């Protein structure tokens, strides 16, 4: 079964089918909130990439989001919770094109990356209470006091928008408790909708439901990435698995039907 699915992936990834995509309400909400950002406002982007490969697979969608923020001329401060995250975010700045035309963002003035902080929920709580009390420098070793962007933001309530992004299912409740529930703010999220559904409308006001949400967002913004190809393959592979489950059940009932007359004969 694994081989069948892998064959489909390899075939379709080099020959995308271009299956249709419809935009969900959560993706539209996410986009609507981003385009409400005004010039000079600052976004706190909580990046949790516990899975070391998560960044590499999500970077095209992250680029679409970062560029949409940059189109509004808003600034971004990244905080992260795993040791490999700061390095990935540094690579992302390069990949996203934020420092190149037409955006020409400058590190320190428009974008800043903080060092990683261990302790998960404790770290989130500490960050929300104030960056200056938690860190002495940014990830590059520049003193907090010498970073222009950090002169106007410190506590979570100083930020105009908070974006949370996490692996797949982990961290929703941690983020919800320590950021929106504690400070009465609303956030937008890049995570599976199932873990923020209970908070949707109160604490969460927009969500990119992983690959589907990312593909929808890429379609909506026109900043195309790989997620649209993902959707092609997902459509096919999900169909194959459902067909096999149906086959398994038919086989089970067939074996029962055959067994009953045989036992009746005895």
């Amino acid at each position, binding site marked *: 079964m694994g081989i069948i699915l892998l064959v489909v992936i390899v075939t379709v990834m080099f020959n995308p089918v271009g299956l249709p995509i419809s935009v969900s309400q959560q993706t539209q909400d996410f986009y609507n909130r981003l385009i409400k950002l005004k010039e000079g406002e600052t976004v706190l982007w909580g990046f949790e990439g516990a899975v070391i490969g998560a960044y590499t697979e999500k970077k095209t969608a992250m680029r679409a989001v970062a560029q949409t923020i940059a189109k509004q001329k808003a600034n971004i401060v990244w905080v992260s919770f795993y040791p*490999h995250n700061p*390095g*990935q975010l540094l690579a992302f700045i390069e990949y996203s094109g934020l420092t190149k035309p037409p955006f020409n963002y400058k590190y320190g003035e428009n974008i800043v990356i903080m060092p990683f902080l261990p302790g998960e929920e404790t770290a989130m709580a500490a960050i929300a209470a104030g960056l200056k*009390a938690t860190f002495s420098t940014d990830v590059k070793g520049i003193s907090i006091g010498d970073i222009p962007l950090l002169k106007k933001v410190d506590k979570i309530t100083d930020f105009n928008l908070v974006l949370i992004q996490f692996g797949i299912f982990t961290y929703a409740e941690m983020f919800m408790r320590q950021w929106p529930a504690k400070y009465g703010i609303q956030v937008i999220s890049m995570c599976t909708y199932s873990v923020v559904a*209970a908070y949707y409308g109160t604490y969460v006001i927009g969500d990119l439901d992983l690959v*589907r949400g990312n593909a929808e967002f890429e379609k909506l913004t026109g900043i195309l990435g790989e997620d649209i190809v993902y959707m092609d393959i*997902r459509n096919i592979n999900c169909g194959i698995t459902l067909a096999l489950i149906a086959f398994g059940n038919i086989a089970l009932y067939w074996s029962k039907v055959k067994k009953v007359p045989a036992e009746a004969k005895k």
Partner: protein
Amino acid sequence: MSTGISRRVYQRLIPLFIVSVFAGISLIVYFVTPSAASKAVSGEILQWGVVLSTVTMIYASITIMVMHTRRLAERKETTRMLFNSSVMVGSFVMVMAIGLFAPGGLTSELLEAVTTYIFGYIYAGILTDWAYHPYTSYRRFRLISAESTVMFITFLFTVLRNMTAVVVAVPGIAVIGDWIAAVPAMATMRAALAAAGIGQLVLGIRALAQREPGLIELEMK
């Protein structure tokens, strides 16, 4: 006897009391009207948590490497285990060298490339083991009880809802899929979060009352 009692005090009772004190302070800070003092206490406690977590991570990282280095030094294990440990120590040393000596250190382009392409790609490859999920779905979804049937129905419509091509072809699938998310899943999610929260609450109160044995090992030395 007196030694036993004093051991019990500093090896068990004081640590449990520390749990109670820190949990109690954090709880009081949550309920009282914010003031400069409460914010200072809260900020300090959180930073203490960050520092403790950081030191523990250093401890654990050192522990794992000590174990493998000791294994190599003693040479009592099988060839395969020695091979594993030597690869691990070798990789550790190489990355430490890059982090410490490459231009830019922790923010060097070389370390970024190694993290992204070597470690990121290796883990991406290993993650393909998740191919077991479709296999597990195939193996375990047999409609032999009311529970498995109900579970399969919601599974089926949710999968279909997330197949964008299906939704475009049959828009009604989105309606059913979204209803499952908004009604049965939402009801259970609310009850579930509350039930789990209540469990946490009771456990937390037990910790405050110093009646929580899971917090500490009980051996007296």
